[in-house]
């Protein structure tokens, strides 16, 4: 009732509101355009004919498309092995991260340890998340070298599992804490052991959280470059390492660059479109909850 009294909208005010709304939509559309255009340009360059790529004025909407760039990067530049490396390393990393991460998150969500121990472990995990990776890369490189693991996929899996773990635990902990305590209590009464409860009852219940974590870890391992370029030389090179060789202007093969870039980002785009809501939740996690 009160609202009506306060907000008696005159027609002039309504027009003003309409204009404001129109301006807001225009501003948002402009921002979306700026955000999307470079991505569009990468995808479109990948399917352009070589002659159309450097054209001036630029061809914004190509009228002929080709798959020759894709043929080139696989047949001539042999990136099949690198793609395979990327897929294997990412898949194994995500698997281990989710398994070890959810076990740790479950353990931390229980009150079996003293509060101080739990808090200490959590703070430590938070701190390791803050570390800039460059601060440990030199000793880490020397350790991997001593172990004779340079240029192996195993060394990359080990790296991604350990550097992704703090974030994985952090994300998963929220999901485990949200589970009602009664479920586990009922299982205890039924005589389930700790690992039975975890694998048969709680893990299936946290599947949405596990999916979110898996997507984040997928993106991390799939995109990672600093360790990949440091720890691999030839056989175990992943896609980002190959793409980084396009940083030299002397190598003006923009078609191949765009094609490899497309191969890298298409799986991520597919994932993020299908799970946008969860992704945004993961991105803002903690920030809003406090």
């Amino acid at each position, binding site marked *: 009732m009160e609202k009506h009294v306060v907000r008696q909208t005159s027609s002039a005010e309504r027009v003003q509101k309409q204009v404001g709304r129109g301006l807001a939509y225009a501003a948002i559309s402009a921002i979306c355009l700026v955000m999307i255009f470079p991505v569009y340009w990468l995808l479109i360059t990948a399917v352009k004919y070589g002659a159309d790529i450097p054209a001036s*004025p630029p061809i914004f909407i190509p009228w002929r498309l080709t798959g020759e760039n894709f043929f080139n990067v696989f047949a001539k530049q042999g990136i099949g092995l690198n793609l395979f490396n990327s897929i294997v390393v990412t898949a194994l990393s995500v698997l281990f991260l989710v398994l070890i991460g959810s076990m740790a998150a479950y353990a931390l969500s229980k009150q079996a340890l003293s509060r101080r121990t739990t808090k200490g472990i959590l703070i430590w995990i938070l701190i390791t998340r803050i570390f800039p990776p460059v*601060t440990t890369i030199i000793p880490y490189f020397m350790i991997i070298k001593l172990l004779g693991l340079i240029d192996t996929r195993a060394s990359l899996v080990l*790296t991604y599992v350990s550097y992704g773990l703090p974030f994985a635990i952090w994300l998963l902990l929220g999901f485990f804490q949200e589970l009602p305590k009664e479920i586990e209590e009922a299982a205890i009464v039924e005589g389930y052991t700790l690992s039975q409860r975890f694998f048969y009852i709680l893990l299936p219940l946290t599947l949405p959280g596990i999916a979110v974590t898996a997507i984040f870890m997928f993106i991390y391992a799939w995109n990672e*470059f600093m360790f990949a370029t440091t720890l691999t030389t030839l056989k175990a090179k992943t896609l980002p390492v190959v793409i980084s060789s396009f940083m030299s202007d002397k190598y003006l093969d923009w078609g191949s660059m765009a094609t490899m870039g497309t191969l890298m980002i298409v799986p991520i*785009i597919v994932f*993020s479109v299908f799970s946008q809501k969860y992704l945004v939740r993961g991105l803002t996690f903690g920030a809003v909850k406090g």
Partner: protein
Amino acid sequence: MKGASLSYRQQEKRGVILFLTPAIIVLLVTSVFPLIYSLALSTFQWNMLMPLSAPKPVGLANFARAFVDVEFTGALLRTVLYVVIAVPVEFVLGMAIAFLVTARIRGLPAFRVAMLMPLMMTPVVVGVLWRFLFNPEYGVIDWLLQAFGGHAVTWLAGRATAFASILIVEVWQQLPVVIFILAAGISSLPEGIFEAADIDGATRWQRFRLLTVPLLRPVIAVVLLLRIMDCFKVFDALYTLTYGGPGSSTELISLFIYKQGLKFFQIGRATSMSWLFLVVVFIVSISFMRQVWKEQAY
């Protein structure tokens, strides 16, 4: 009865420790051990590129030298400059856009997808892609500039324009994070207070300055902390966009330390700088976190 429950509790505790063990081992091996090893290495002078060179113990000399090392302090200052420009720009734009999108608009899912695109992109690809866009001969940016009557800019060739370029790419890729977090913060604010302010006849600006900003303070602190920390980590896109050049004009701290250690193999120098860098990161993040915790105490 009591004995049984005790053994159950012990069993639980043992299980919990067992479940934590893999994570603890992994974190020990990859964070604690390398850090200690790095601290040990930082007290040696050692150029791994020289054949037969052996590490020579020099005590704390590497640390003392780092303070007067113009290359190191230059990289730190450039990083500070980068933070001081990029973070406020992202924050102001992010706040404005977050307000626009939380004011009940249609097509929010489409907007969300558009915002996720830059964010999800492989940083290495971002670097090479923008190299292509900035290209003076057939880059789209210079073509657009000329089409609208401006001058072409040789973006990556000049020191100042190259620094501007890395800032543009930074804002393009990271603005969405700021928008998402601030928008989530704004929509979680209690509606009632704003209605009360409306009744009292507060203007929009007053509402923003006196209500939204103070209420959002913890969220704002988190956004700023996240962005500053990520600026310290910037590496991949920088590596493929400019590789620190021309000269060292875009060489930020992470890239600088990386080059010292893994390109020139000045192990002692690079590890001592890593440690100093860590100390800086620590001080910044802890002071921010205190701010957040203090806010939550209310």
